[in-house]
């Protein structure tokens, strides 16, 4: 039986986070009542003229820079002509012959291997309006133009991907980068990051590409993976049973667990692109491009590498702590603040703060797009861990204090004082407790003296019990050894 190799290329549409639309001053806020964010330009009323939004163009340049593209100093908007109710002009303003960014790449890691995926182009275009079915009469579609005209970048990859896993890795990494540089909020559910996949198969070793199908409208990474896996299997089935692949648009049906043909969208893709006479070419000079490069936030991969180098984190920890731009910023602020309070090196601070944030804080964090809600301020975490560092409390008590901080929003020092949680470092109080433990456990003491050194752990546990966990473990240990030897 012939072995087949899948060939996958991805097209991602990402909404850019400018305040206003691409060609008019209407706001881009999500969730406004239908058609409250429209004007003659985005409704295509006669005579209205588009004016490009500087912020949108510059965000697109930054996306190009982050993906190692060549930035075109001269780019042109073009009309893509087709009729659909979500497109009031009868064309979409996009870019065709001269896009803003070309020839970039993205390195992905799959199964421990790094692979470079080519990016053909990143062009700027306006989003379409939203068609709503099932409200009002059943015989109508209701069109909401709030989204119409929102700036998008379309990121087109080379057909370099060879599996659903690679496709998923590419999408996750791409979203990560766009979120960290603040170009896109990464929200698949709200449709601000959308993916189409071109999938074909060919016999292994054949250079020529097979006929492809386009998978559209898939709104989660999990579904993208499932849809591609299914589509590869479907195409192999068709070819092996002697059939041929038809070039068509398909979508993923989660209910049916398979890709299905989207009949009705098969109309010839004859868009008759031509330069938009309403829009002169856009020119960005090198000085401006360099200024945009300099203003760009640190990319996630660079951040992780730096954390491993300077903050003593493992690759895994760095990955977890940079799962969201706000989480990364939170961790960095907490680590910096802790290092200042305790005059610790970056590596010492990074490791301690990183562990605590991962183990305790992250499960209380909720994210929504680029926003994140934290249970307590980053500096409060630094203050809490500083109290552990200077011996005021131990690690176990720190968790109790943290729980109270989350509950009450109060500062760690106040909680420690109020609840009397400061650990007992007072040697005489600890000595007292140790004597009591030794007196009440004569048989264990005998065994210890007979050479069963591991019993020290048992004694420490007993002392901690007597002191209700508030004793400094180091002092307890020393005192125990001394008094056991004396007894």
């Amino acid at each position: 039986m012939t072995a087949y190799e899948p060939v996958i290329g991805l097209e991602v549409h990402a909404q850019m986070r400018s305040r206003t639309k691409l060609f008019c001053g209407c706001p881009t806020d999500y969730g406004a009542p239908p058609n409250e964010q429209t004007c003659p330009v985005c409704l295509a009323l006669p005579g209205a003229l588009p004016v490009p939004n500087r912020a949108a163009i510059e965000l697109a340049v930054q996306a190009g820079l982050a993906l190692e593209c060549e930035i075109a100093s001269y780019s042109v908007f073009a009309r893509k002509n087709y009729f659909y109710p979500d497109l009031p002009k009868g064309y979409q303003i996009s870019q065709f012959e001269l896009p803003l960014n070309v020839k970039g790449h993205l390195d992905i890691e799959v199964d421990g291997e790094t692979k470079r995926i080519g990016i053909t182009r990143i062009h700027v275009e306006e989003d379409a309006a939203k068609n709503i079915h099932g409200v009002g009469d059943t015989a109508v579609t209701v069109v909401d133009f709030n989204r119409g005209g929102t700036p998008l970048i379309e990121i087109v990859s080379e057909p370099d991907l060879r599996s659903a896993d690679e496709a998923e890795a590419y999408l996750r990494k791409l979203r990560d980068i766009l979120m960290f540089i603040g170009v896109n909020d990464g929200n698949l559910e709200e449709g601000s990051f959308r993916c189409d996949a071109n999938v074909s198969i060919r016999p292994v070793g054949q250079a020529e590409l097979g006929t492809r199908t386009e998978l559209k409208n898939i709104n989660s990474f999990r579904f993208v993976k499932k849809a591609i896996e299914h589509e590869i299997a479907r195409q192999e089935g068709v070819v092996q049973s002697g059939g041929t692949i038809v070039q068509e648009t398909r979508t993923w049906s989660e209910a049916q667990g398979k890709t299905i043909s989207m009949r009705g969208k098969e109309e010839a893709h004859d868009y008759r692109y031509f330069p938009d006479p309403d829009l002169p070419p856009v020119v960005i000079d090198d000085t401006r491009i360099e200024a945009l490069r300099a203003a760009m936030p640190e990319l996630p991969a660079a951040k992780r590498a730096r954390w491993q180098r300077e903050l003593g984190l493992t690759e895994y920890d760095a990955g977890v702590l940079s799962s969201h731009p706000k989480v990364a910023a939170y961790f960095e602020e907490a680590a910096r603040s802790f290092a200042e309070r305790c005059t610790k090196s970056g590596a010492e601070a990074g490791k301690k703060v990183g562990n605590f944030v991962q183990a305790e804080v992250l499960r209380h964090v909720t994210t929504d797009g680029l926003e994140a809600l934290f249970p307590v301020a980053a500096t409060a975490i630094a203050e809490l861990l500083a109290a552990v560092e200077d011996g005021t409390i131990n690690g176990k008590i720190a968790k109790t204090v943290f729980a109270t901080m989350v509950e009450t929003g109060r500062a760690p020092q106040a909680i420690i004082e109020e609840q009397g949680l400061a650990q007992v470092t007072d040697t005489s109080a600890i000595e007292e407790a140790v004597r009591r433990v030794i007196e009440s456990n004569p048989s264990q003491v005998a065994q210890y003296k007979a050479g069963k050194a591991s019993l020290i752990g048992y004694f420490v546990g007993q002392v901690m019990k007597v002191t209700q966990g508030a004793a400094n473990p180091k002092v307890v240990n020393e005192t125990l050894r001394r008094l056991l030897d004396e007894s």
Partner: protein
Amino acid sequence: MADARISLEQVLHVAKLARLTLSEQEAREMQEQLDAILRYMEGLDTLDVSEVPPTFHSIPMLAPLRPDVPARCSDRSEILAQAPDSQWGGFAVPLVLEVE
């Protein structure tokens, strides 16, 4: 039109893409006019344009860019009043069938 620069089929195809219904008479008229335009453009073939950059815009100017500052939007009831039908705050159009 034997040696027409554009076939009748092409004219009908373009008409279909533009959602125009042309009678055969109208299609032939269009073919003649488009043919004349294409023949006129052939005048360029007599010139050496290999050193001339493609023209993307008729006026040598660059796009002025707009600051990203929200402007006032239109009044919804006013714009919807201009549409043949509106429902639920949106423009109501004949049902667009989508698979699923």
